[in-house]
């Protein structure tokens, strides 16, 4: 492969805030009905990273979530399973064992998630532990404090170091856009992450509000498009946190299709970091099948 020249991250790429928000609201008005809606709902289901990242997580809960990941809704076994489960490093082994024999990946957050406030060595150890436990994907957080100070080299080197520690595992870089303040910062952080070797860029940890928003996602998708144009390397996208409704999920799919094209519309290149979204998607799918509005009482929580 030819040598990739790394751009000067101090050059701000201007983002038209009004333009981005207008484009999102324009794309949100697109109506998806009937057969295409069912297809889109199933596609969205297959793109989910079923997530549990709570202090009270236990092996039991992770095992239960893994069975939901395998068969999201028992009365309809033909539905796709989700793309991955996302857990803390010390739950990776449990999840790996519970998902043995399925194609479902195990993703683990690492690098002192969610704050990222730790020494590099601690972060590397955290990552290695997760990878050694069997994680297929690592979700790292960037050091937002250093980023906001303008210490871009620090961010770049840190991501590159973690990428090396990941080995075979895919690396998702969480920008935590809720703390980056501006769209320009989101764009810069996206570029740094991609040039430093990210396989995926991800909006949020889900611990900060606002988490994933559509305008932020659009800015990141455009960064991915430009990166692909410059280097020919495809990078995946994962909005995470706050996506609860099937309708929103479909709107995200429209954003991806219109910005990156159909090649990105697979679980390999686009994911939803969510937990409650799963049940809303299932309720909509069952509604489409039966014509009857559904109740959450009939769907398992985990």
């Amino acid at each position, binding site marked *: 492969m030819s040598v990739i020249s790394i751009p000067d991250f101090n050059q701000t790429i201007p983002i038209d805030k009004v333009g981005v928000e207008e484009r999102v609201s324009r794309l949100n008005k697109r109506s998806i009905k009937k057969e295409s809606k069912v297809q889109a709902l199933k596609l969205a289901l297959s793109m989910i990273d079923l997530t549990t990242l709570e202090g009270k997580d236990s092996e039991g809960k992770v095992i239960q979530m893994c069975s939901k990941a395998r068969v999201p809704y028992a009365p309809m076994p033909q539905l796709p399973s989700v793309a991955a489960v996302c857990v803390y490093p010390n739950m990776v082994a449990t999840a790996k064992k519970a998902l043995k024999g399925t194609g479902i990946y195990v993703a683990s957050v690492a690098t002192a998630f969610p704050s990222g406030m730790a020494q590099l060595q601690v972060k590397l150890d955290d990552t290695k532990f997760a990878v050694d436990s069997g994680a297929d994907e690592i979700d790292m957080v960037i050091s937002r404090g250093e980023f906001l100070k303008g210490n871009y080299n620090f961010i770049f080197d840190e991501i590159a170091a973690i990428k090396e520690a990941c080995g075979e595992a895919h690396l998702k870089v969480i920008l935590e856009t809720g703390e980056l303040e501006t769209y320009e910062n989101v764009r810069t952080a996206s570029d740094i992450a991609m040039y430093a070797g990210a396989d995926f860029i991800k909006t949020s940890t889900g611990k900060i509000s606002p988490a994933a928003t559509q305008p932020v996602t659009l800015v990141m998708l455009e960064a991915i498009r430009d990166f692909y144009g410059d280097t020919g390397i495809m990078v995946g996208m994962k909005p995470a946190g706050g996506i609860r409704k099937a309708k929103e999920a479909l709107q995200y799919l429209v954003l991806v299709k219109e910005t990156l094209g159909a090649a990105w519309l697979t679980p390999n290149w686009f994911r939803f970091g969510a937990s409650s979204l799963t049940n809303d998607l299932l309720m909509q799918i069952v509604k489409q099948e039966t014509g009857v509005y559904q*109740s959450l009482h009939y769907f398992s929580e985990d």
Partner: protein
Amino acid sequence: MSDRIDVLKTYKTYVGGKFPRSESDRTYKVNNSNDKVVANACRCTRKDVRDAVLAARTASKDWSGRSAYNRGQVLYRIAEMLEGRKDQFIRELELLGMKSKEAVYEVELSVDRLIYYAGWTDKYPQVFGTVNPVASSHFNFSAPEPTGVVGIIASDEDPLLSIISLIAPVIAGGNTCVILASESNPLPAVSFGEVLHASDVPAGVVNILTGYREEMVDHLSSHMDVNAVLNTIFDKETRKLIDENASISVKRVVHYDSKNWADDTHENPYLILDFQETKTTWHPVGV
């Protein structure tokens, strides 16, 4: 003076503590008893039913968790607010073609009925709860608990009094509800929404939709998140549809045969019990 064009009010719906128009933005004309158009009302359909049920479900947890005493206070507050707006309701009933005397009677009886159910909220669990003798060493007792979300298909007769007679026992028992107001006389129901809004009823406990019944009954009675249906329509086909739809999720269905809403059979704690589930607890003793 007579050259002036009338400004007809478009009555909006009451869903989740707000007054939205129908999702489709469509309205229909409401006539009085002389077939003169007196107002417009929203023509709600499937998606409005969906939104209203969601609002009722969301409100259910808070409302059923309130203390019985507090629910009584809230019902009493509705009665107070209705009393304060008596004149408006009398005028509206007259507009629909009711005689003044009848209108006054209907509004006053409505207020009294609310007070009646306000008094029952902390008493019906005592009356209907039981301590059950069992052979094992358990303290065994049963208590009524709210069913959940109740879909109410309101009557065309006595539009204000009937709707209050239907709502009061349902919410007194800790349920939330979605009401399909009378198709021909929806105005008092919607104005009652304004009263609810001004009293302390939490958003979503009572949701009022207007429109053509046949466009909504099917979706309301088949909705899996509705736990019970209270129907006042006599039409056989409608009753059959409700019964069949309710069977999908095994909803409670109550059909009312009443035509006379002023009748004191509507002041009866058993009407609260219609939308209660019995929970029995086995508590070990002496072990």
